[in-house]
């Protein structure tokens, strides 16, 4: 057994994220590791990689005991990782990037032995038959070549037939045309006798590539199959499980009226390739898709906030401007909150005219508006003047939501409304959106978590490769159907 993991547990604060993960990866196999958002998949990988320490765990790599309960730069030489961002410096050449990971060869004078270094780089790349100019900056190479280099660098120095290589969603950043070439690389790694732990959320890849597959759900591995003995439908069902039954009970918005409030046509962007949609009054419209499918750009496009190349038109039937539609951004820290500012300042920044008296901001008026929202959303905060950085992620997210709703909008755009949010806050957010929708608010929401869409939406558009490929209405909006649709598995 190349990797044997038993009883891995991990808690963050009060949240028990991993409840005993067991995993066996054999030498010479590609072992897929799948799970929905928040299942504990990334946390498991981060513990293995040494970013987090485990509460408890027993782990063996090639029969040697590896302690996981402390944080470490490197766990074991036989356990190596290629992370999604590849950990490379794009401005530097292949030669330098390999040397950054493993050190430079020195000549007798203490300088860099460039000949030996280049020779070593060339041999590393030959492993997969990669032929590129090793002196050019990596940024000039294609994504698949950079991935090959990262894998090759990770395997540097291994004896044939040893080692466990962990690939964390290696195809997420690859254009579709280059995926097959990466598969060949992964197969040749397997054929060399090494073990591959292949983390992915794309079921089609698993059937193309993996020998076995383990499914993690709610912090524990719930099933391990030989890929030949399982169907995509079964995997989707196991991934979804019965989790989140509590949030499913949230009363969904009643059927929307027929009145169209927003019409978007031909939306294009970095990943969108022509998306049309109509939003009706009082409707919560979901947009589902995998990372990179184009779905994540939709709320930004609807709210007129896309930067970079983009096209298409957004028309509000009441004559308003798209740029006035409030947006709950997908990345709370980078795009949502002002960490250096107070709760009040974060909440009122989009609607300062509501707390103004002449040219002057009224501190009293502001405090009363903020206090009102703190109560309505149950925001747990030391006070309106407290720095927002003292709030938990879920409460910060509520402040961002309050910021949007304080503009009394008729249309709201949301991206990943519950990312990093605990289950109670989730339910509260669902409930709030449902009530606002009942009062006439129209919402466009995208989420990588199908649960969100099931809980919120009466209609879901499924986006694949930049286009809408399906529309799910009413009873069709279930997690299993959404997962199958975004993965492109035909409904049974």
């Amino acid at each position, binding site marked *: 057994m190349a990797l044997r993991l038993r009883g891995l547990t991990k808690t963050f604060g009060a949240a028990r994220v991993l409840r005993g993960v067991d995993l066996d990866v054999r030498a010479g196999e590609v072992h897929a590791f799948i799970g929905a958002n928040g299942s504990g998949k990334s946390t498991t990988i981060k513990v293995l990689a040494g970013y987090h320490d485990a509460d408890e765990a027993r782990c063996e790599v090639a029969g040697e005991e590896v302690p996981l309960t402390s944080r470490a730069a490197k766990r074991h030489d036989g356990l190596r990782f290629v992370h999604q961002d590849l950990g490379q410096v794009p401005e530097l050449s292949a030669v330098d990037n390999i040397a950054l990971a493993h050190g430079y060869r020195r000549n007798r004078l203490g300088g860099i032995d460039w000949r030996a270094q280049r020779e070593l780089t060339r041999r590393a790349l030959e492993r997969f038959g990669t032929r590129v100019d090793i002196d050019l900056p990596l940024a000039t190479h294609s994504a698949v070549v950079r991935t090959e280099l990262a894998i090759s660098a990770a395997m540097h120095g291994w004896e044939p037939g040893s080692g466990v290589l962990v690939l964390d969603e290696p195809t997420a950043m690859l254009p579709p045309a280059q995926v097959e070439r990466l598969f060949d690389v992964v197969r040749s790694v397997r054929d060399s006798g090494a073990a591959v732990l292949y983390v992915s959320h794309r079921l089609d890849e698993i059937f193309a590539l993996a020998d076995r597959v383990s499914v993690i759900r709610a912090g524990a591995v719930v099933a391990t199959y030989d890929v030949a003995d399982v169907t995509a439908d079964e995997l989707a069902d196991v991934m979804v499980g019965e989790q989140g039954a509590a949030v499913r009970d949230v009363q969904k918005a009643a059927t929307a009226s027929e009145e169209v409030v927003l019409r978007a046509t031909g939306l294009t962007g970095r990943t969108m390739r022509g998306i049309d949609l109509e939003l009706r009054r009082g409707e919560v419209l979901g947009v589902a898709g995998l990372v990179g499918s184009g779905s994540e750009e939709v709320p930004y496009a609807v709210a007129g906030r896309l930067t970079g190349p983009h096209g298409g038109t957004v028309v509000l039937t009441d004559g308003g401007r798209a740029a006035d539609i409030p947006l709950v951004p997908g990345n709370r820290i980078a795009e949502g909150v*002002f*960490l250096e*500012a107070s709760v009040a*300042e974060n909440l009122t920044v989009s609607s300062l005219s*509501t707390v103004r008296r002449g040219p002057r901001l009224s501190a009293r008026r502001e405090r009363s508006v903020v206090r009102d929202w703190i109560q309505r959303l149950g925001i747990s905060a030391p006070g309106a003047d407290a720095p927002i950085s003292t709030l938990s992620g879920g409460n910060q997210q509520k402040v961002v939501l309050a910021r949007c709703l304080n503009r009394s909008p008729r249309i709201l755009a949301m991206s990943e409304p519950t990312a990093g949010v605990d289950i109670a806050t989730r339910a509260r957010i669902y409930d709030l959106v449902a009530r606002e929708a009942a009062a006439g608010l129209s919402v466009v929401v995208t989420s990588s978590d199908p649960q969100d869409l099931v809980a919120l939406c009466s209609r879901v558009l499924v986006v694949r490769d930049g286009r809408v490929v399906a529309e799910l209405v009413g009873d069709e909006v279930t997690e299993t159907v959404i997962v199958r649709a975004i993965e492109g598995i035909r409904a049974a």
Partner: protein
Amino acid sequence: MSDLQTGPPPATAPPSTPSGTTTEPAPAEPARPWTRHLAFSNIGAVYVLIALVALFAIWVPQTFLTSATLYQVFNSTAVTALAALSVIIPLSARVFDLSIAGTITLTGVVATQLIVKHELGVPAAVAVAVLTGLMIGVLNAIIVVVLKIDSFIATMASGALLAAFTTMVTGDLDVTGVVLSQGFNEIGQTMVGGFTLPVVYVVVVTAVLWFLMQHTAFGRRMYATGFNREAARLAGVPTERLRFASLVISGGLAGLAGIVLAATLAAGSVTAGTPYLLGAFAAAFLGATQLQHGRFNAVGTIIAVLLLGTGVVGLGLAQAPTWSQDLFTGLVLIVALIATRYQRAGAANATVGH
């Protein structure tokens, strides 16, 4: 130090106020002790200033504790204060304007040149000079905001252009003339009860900037832009327009500083602005550690200017070697920045456990 800071009161759920934004019943929030404003973490520089006064009072009692010293501190720091005030708005939006030294020099030269060579009246000359400052701001803004060049290097470059332009129009000779002492000098030299007129300008500009940054939507949005530009943009804040405006304002205020300096000297010096760059940024950064917990603000900046000015004047009176003044400025700035860093780290640690 942080335990001296009286934090916000615990959340005591006030009685429910089911209200829109119009009703304003203001439920009683427990009164916060006004003494929290006096915490060292809030106005540490004032305490340092008091300690400094005490130190010099003991060191050079005959010369330091006189009203002349008081006036000298205020009068000698007025131009530095104007220069420092000119950079706080861009800094709030996280934009650097390093061209202010060049702007100060050029606007002084423009005003004096117009009066001496072109026999323009003082008001017209001053108007053209202020306009010059604003135009420099517009050009900076076009480079930084429209062409998207990093402000630090862009305004450093435009500062070099301004220096070149100044030398070109003056032939590297200071602009002097008797006519400058017949009206123009009054802008900088008129006395108002021991203080010079520039001190009054500083008071007015400080009051305006404090109101603008601390009490209007403009200021709030400017800070938001500086805290997190992407979040501000997505929240509907017109970040690029604000960044543009910030550079125009700093150009205009630096222009004012240049005119005041030229009037004080009654000459248009071709190197006048250079020494003010470091002093302005030192005061702005030190001032940001005062009152507003890390935000660039007008009153804090003035406290900083006075602290640094008192040190420099006191060291002069004590006949300490001249290098001690730079030593003092550098040390105070570094200590203040370190103190702020740890103050913030303490605040961040307070989040653990939520």
